[in-house]
């Protein structure tokens, strides 16, 4: 980690202005916009969803738009690396002539200021699959063009559980540096060569930390660690082992029964990355191939051409969500496909609570023994489902 520097709030304004003027896109958490009905703005009731959903990651033109404090953006950072829908190529066909127009894979430089550490960490986890047997040019191109400074988190609420999945409120995984709020600005540290290059290129904006600044930053981070310690904790290895050996366990039926299969959890998830590729015709003999976010919670996700569906109901689909995140991905790529951000819990209007479910699996695994012998256990009744 590089030496700590100080970025004052005023210098942050100059930094953003300078980057924008130089053509670098600046992305960060900002109050969520959106149209309102003309004439009714004054009478809109306050949002019922509290602080969650009040922010969104977006490109800003000015540091004053940024909200570098508490608050979890509604959608994660993944949309800037894997957009909801993106063009892979377009085609035009006339007789035997086919003209293909490829999507450019060169990207302009971007900086993310104030990523949630769990959102930055998610990118590094998903890198595993995006640079595996096939190197995804669009994902990796955007990753390389983007410098990310995470903002040390003070813990959002009771639904964060990052330490259980190998992260922390001040993790720098997936990021190039860390911002920690202190009086008058931020303590900034670079953690990768890319991050150091960014600090060097913008050295004029940064100053030596004020006296006591390092202690203040440490206290902030320690307070967050203590706070997150009060939240749900699981043994991810034990959960993984249990899932791996209990694909048919009756316990699953109790876990997925209230799930609607709406898929909102997968849309807001920073690590869910499944997509569907579609050819959309746009006239005679021409069209565009796009890839769009998809969700394993939809029945159509696994529907075969024959009409058979190996995941016949929501119980099987919900099991898939847990199985892929906490067993399949760790076994294949060595990391849990979850950063404990809690977005799925905050989003699910039916009250599916992944933190509670992981604790239930962990406890059930302990009850049934380390050997994972399901026959020794009596599954809890449906109503006892978390």
């Amino acid at each position, binding site marked *: 980690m590089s030496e700590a520097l100080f970025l004052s709030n005023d210098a942050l304004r100059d930094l953003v202005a300078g980057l924008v003027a130089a053509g670098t896109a600046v992305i960060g958490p900002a109050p969520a916009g959106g*149209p309102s009905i003309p004439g009714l703005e004054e009478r809109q009731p306050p949002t019922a969803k509290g602080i969650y*959903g009040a922010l969104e990651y977006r490109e800003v033109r000015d540091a004053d738009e940024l909200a570098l404090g508490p608050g979890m953006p509604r959608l994660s950072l993944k949309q800037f690396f894997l957009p*909801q829908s993106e063009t892979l190529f377009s085609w035009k066909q006339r007789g035997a002539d086919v003209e293909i127009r490829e999507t450019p894979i060169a990207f302009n430089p971007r900086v993310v200021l104030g990523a949630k550490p769990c959102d930055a960490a998610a990118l590094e986890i998903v890198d595993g699959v995006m640079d595996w047997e096939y190197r995804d040019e669009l994902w990796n191109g955007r990753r390389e063009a983007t410098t990310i400074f995470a903002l040390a988190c003070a813990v959002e609420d009771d639904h964060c559980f990052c330490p259980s999945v190998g992260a922390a409120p001040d993790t720098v995984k997936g990021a190039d540096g860390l911002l920690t709020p202190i009086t008058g600005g931020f303590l900034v540290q670079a953690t990768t060569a890319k991050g150091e290059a960014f600090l060097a290129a913008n050295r004029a904006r940064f100053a030596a930390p004020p006296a006591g600044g390092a202690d203040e930053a440490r206290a902030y981070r320690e307070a967050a660690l203590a706070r997150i310690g009060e939240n749900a904790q699981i043994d991810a290895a034990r959960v993984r082992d249990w899932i791996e050996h209990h694909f048919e366990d009756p316990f699953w039926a109790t876990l997925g029964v209230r799930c609607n299969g709406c898929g909102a959890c997968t849309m807001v998830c920073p690590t869910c990355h499944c997509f569907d590729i579609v050819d959309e015709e746009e006239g005679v003999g021409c069209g565009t191939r796009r890839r769009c976010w998809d969700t394993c919670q939809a029945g159509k996700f696994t529907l075969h051409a024959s009409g058979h569906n190996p995941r016949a109901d929501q119980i099987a689909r919900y099991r898939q969500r847990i199985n892929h995140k906490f067993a399949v991905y760790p076994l294949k790529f060595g990391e849990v496909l979850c950063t404990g951000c809690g977005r799925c819990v905050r989003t699910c209007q039916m009250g599916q609570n992944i933190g509670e479910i992981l604790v239930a699996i962990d406890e059930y695994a302990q009850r049934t023994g380390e050997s994972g012998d399901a026959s020794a256990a009596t599954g809890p009744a449906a109503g006892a489902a978390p």
Partner: protein
Amino acid sequence: MKELRDLARQLLADGTVDVVVGWEDSPRGARPIFATTPDDAGKLIFDTRCLHNLATYLNPRRKQVTDLGKLALVIKGCDAKAVAGLLREAQLDRDRVVLIGVRCGGVCEDSMAPEPVALTPETVAPRCFGCDNREPHLVDHLVGDPRPEPPAPLLTLDERVAALDALTPEQRWEYWTAQFDKCVRCYACRQVCPMCVCERCVADKSRPQWIETASHPRGNLSWNVTRALHLAGRCVGCGECERFCPAGIPLATLNRKLQQVVEQRYDYRVADDPEVTAPIGDFRLDDQQEFIK
């Protein structure tokens, strides 16, 4: 509460039903519970956070629920409209379900509040305004004391519709285009809808691809408009689609507009009586049909 829990215990104990679907308290507010034991029945609650329309679990598409056996379902008066809708469209066998009605004094907009929310103009769900079903019909059991009428919301759905109607078509187009632009195409609105009963949704058909799956303006417009039109005269106004939308699109306002149009053209208001025919399943010689030229 005791009355509800005692009734659920009795229905489970005497084997009338295999599971009682109602609400329970959780680490994140009120949520559905599938109670199968007397202990579970003791967890049942009903308060202002119980705004979920549980009739969605009667949807024949939900195999994980139909597999549970015979259900008892706790419903509010407004939820009874969805049950009536399912019966009207022959999607539900009335003998399959025992309906427990709860007398309701309105619900709030936030099911996830840690404790019951006092109803004020700021907190009350707009759909509770002018509610004529606070005592559910169609039920086998009715529990709870009569509750006072909820306060009027800060802004009613009709006021929202009127404000949009007052705009020019260009302004309205701009407003809805910007709203639909937020759509992530998760189809949460469809999944939660108690009236979206199709075995295979038009959005899931790929030969031909009626509705483009990409979330560009064209795809988003065709999905959102198709969803709304397929629910015209069928939507019960529970607002679950809007509540579930992770993108925050005001779908209830759109649905309300369609309810108004159906009411004006066919003199039909969504009813909790399955014998009342809905325009989609009815033809009358005096139906307005000036669009057939």
